[in-house]
């Protein structure tokens, strides 16, 4: 799949914002107050900023954005429509939550709004992940690993940002470091698990795609290898632009190293460090997001759409 930069940025930015918002809401409703209200308000503001920036970026992907408002229409069947509906609801709830936190309201209303914000954040994350996981035509996306990875990565980047807030504002940042460390380790293991699972040989083949088994083969033979003779167009098409993107194996390895080093390695050093100043926090969050941008870019680049078989790929 061609990595669509607007979508890559959207999933990382909104993911971090949604993860941060969900975690902040959880921390906020925790019986013992871990974060003071001003820190919570700043966190909600940062989360909403990331979410809105991501959503704005996703609109750049549309070829006819003037019809974007219609995306709310198919809530009952389309994960993208569900994402749009829940994201819109989340922005409204998030703004109310932000207002309550700024006003330092401490009552049942704030707790209920926090719970709704957390639930909506998770719902939007699931919807976004399911947009990819529901596509049966893309083997590397149509797997349980897709939502698992996306939810964990969103919470990992969110927890790094939350730890920054805690180091600045909380009296005890240690629980936040443990939280981030735990999520980060799980997210890394899940990502490695995904790469390991994608190595298996179970893909569709060109022979399968054109029906060699059903009789599309030389007379008298039962099995035969198929090859593309001519794709039927001399230059690129929408299909080759969109699905023809290929990544050399050594480049994939390099990208994976970059994704892990930036996305996990550098932020983890900061997580385990006993303390850190604001500049370091900024750097850790930035590295994490850059690493996850590489990870999302790879998620697209390594996905092989079924139509590539008809363009001559031996297997998906």
């Amino acid at each position, binding site marked *: *799949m061609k990595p669509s930069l607007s979508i890559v940025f959207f999933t990382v930015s909104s993911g971090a914002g949604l993860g941060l918002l969900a975690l902040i809401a959880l921390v906020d409703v925790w019986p013992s107050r871990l974060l003071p209200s001003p820190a919570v308000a700043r966190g909600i503001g940062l989360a909403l900023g990331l979410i809105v920036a991501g959503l704005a970026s996703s609109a750049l*992907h*549309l*070829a*006819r954005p*003037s*019809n*974007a408002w*219609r*995306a*709310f*229409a*198919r809530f009952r*069947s*389309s*994960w*993208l*429509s569900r994402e*749009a509906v829940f994201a819109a609801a989340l922005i409204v709830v998030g703004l109310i939550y932000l207002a309550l936190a700024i006003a330092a309201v401490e009552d049942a209303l704030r707790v209920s709004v926090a719970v709704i914000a957390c639930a909506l954040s998770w719902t939007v994350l699931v919807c976004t992940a399911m*947009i990819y996981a*529901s*596509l*049966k*035509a893309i083997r590397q996306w149509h797997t349980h690993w897709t939502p698992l990875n996306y939810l964990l990565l969103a919470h990992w980047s969110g927890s790094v940002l939350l730890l920054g807030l805690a180091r600045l504002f909380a009296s005890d940042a240690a629980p936040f470091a443990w939280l981030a460390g735990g999520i980060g380790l799980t997210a890394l293991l899940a990502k490695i698990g995904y790469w390991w699972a994608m190595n298996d040989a179970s893909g*569709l083949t060109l*022979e399968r*795609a*054109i*029906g*060699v088994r*059903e*009789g*599309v*083969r*030389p*007379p*008298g*033979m039962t099995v*035969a*290898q*198929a*090859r*593309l*003779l*001519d*794709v*039927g*167009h001399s*230059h*690129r*098409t*929408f*299909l080759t632009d*969109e*699905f023809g993107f290929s990544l050399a194996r050594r480049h994939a390895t390099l990208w994976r190293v970059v994704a892990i080093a930036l996305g996990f390695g550098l932020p983890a050093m900061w997580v385990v460090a006993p303390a850190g100043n604001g500049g370091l926090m900024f750097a850790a969050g930035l590295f994490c997001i850059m690493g996850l941008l590489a990870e999302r870019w790879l998620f697209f680049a390594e996905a092989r*759409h*079924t*139509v590539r078989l*008809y*363009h001559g790929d031996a297997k998906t």
Partner: protein
Amino acid sequence: MTPDGSGKPLCGVITVKLGLVIDLDTCVGCHACAVACKEWNDGSPVSGPLSDYQPFGAEPSGVWFNRVRHYEVGDYPASKTINFPMSCMHCADADCVTVCPTGASYKREDGIVLVDQDKCMGCNLCAWACPYGARELDRSSGTMKKCTLCVDRINDERLPEEERQPACVLACPTHARFFGDFDDPDSQVSRLTAERGGFGLLPELGFAPVNRYLPPREPKPLTGLEDARSLLERGLASLASPLIRR
């Protein structure tokens, strides 16, 4: 049904499942179906223009509903060339419709999958969902375009009945394409599928594609040189005898 593809049901009780049969035995890969498709549908009220980019430049490309690819199966000398036209399979369980957030993509009661050009926001998700490459984004209109099974031909009563078929079917010089109702077991497409072992592409993906492909026929074995010679002699004799008798 209206020629603009408004999606009104064709009939109340009888179910209809319209689609194509493509005979890989007789297809010669001439692309006439693909060109005739573009000729009929380009600028149609259903789809609007099928834009062409750099038409006379270095990298000509454009929007097509139907593309013909060419494969070779097996190694020389036991190899076979397969010409493989592909357009929308009008899947019974069409994921392109399921994933569409705007409702632009829809499936009619006669089985035809269409895109409402006024509603599409060009998010590409339906193209991602389709394993057959049947959908192409028009960069000029910003909307997704696809095979309409010539919905503005097949029910147009102003046309002679034999012309109420998709343009690709009418254009095919080797009669390798057939159009009809797969829900009717007596239709030509149903009978051909049953007789020739017609198959749908990649059923394991679960989209229940409607279009059927007929595999190449096994050639009849030659009955030997002696038979061929006697056949030739008999043929010559039958040709010559009327002349001689005269």
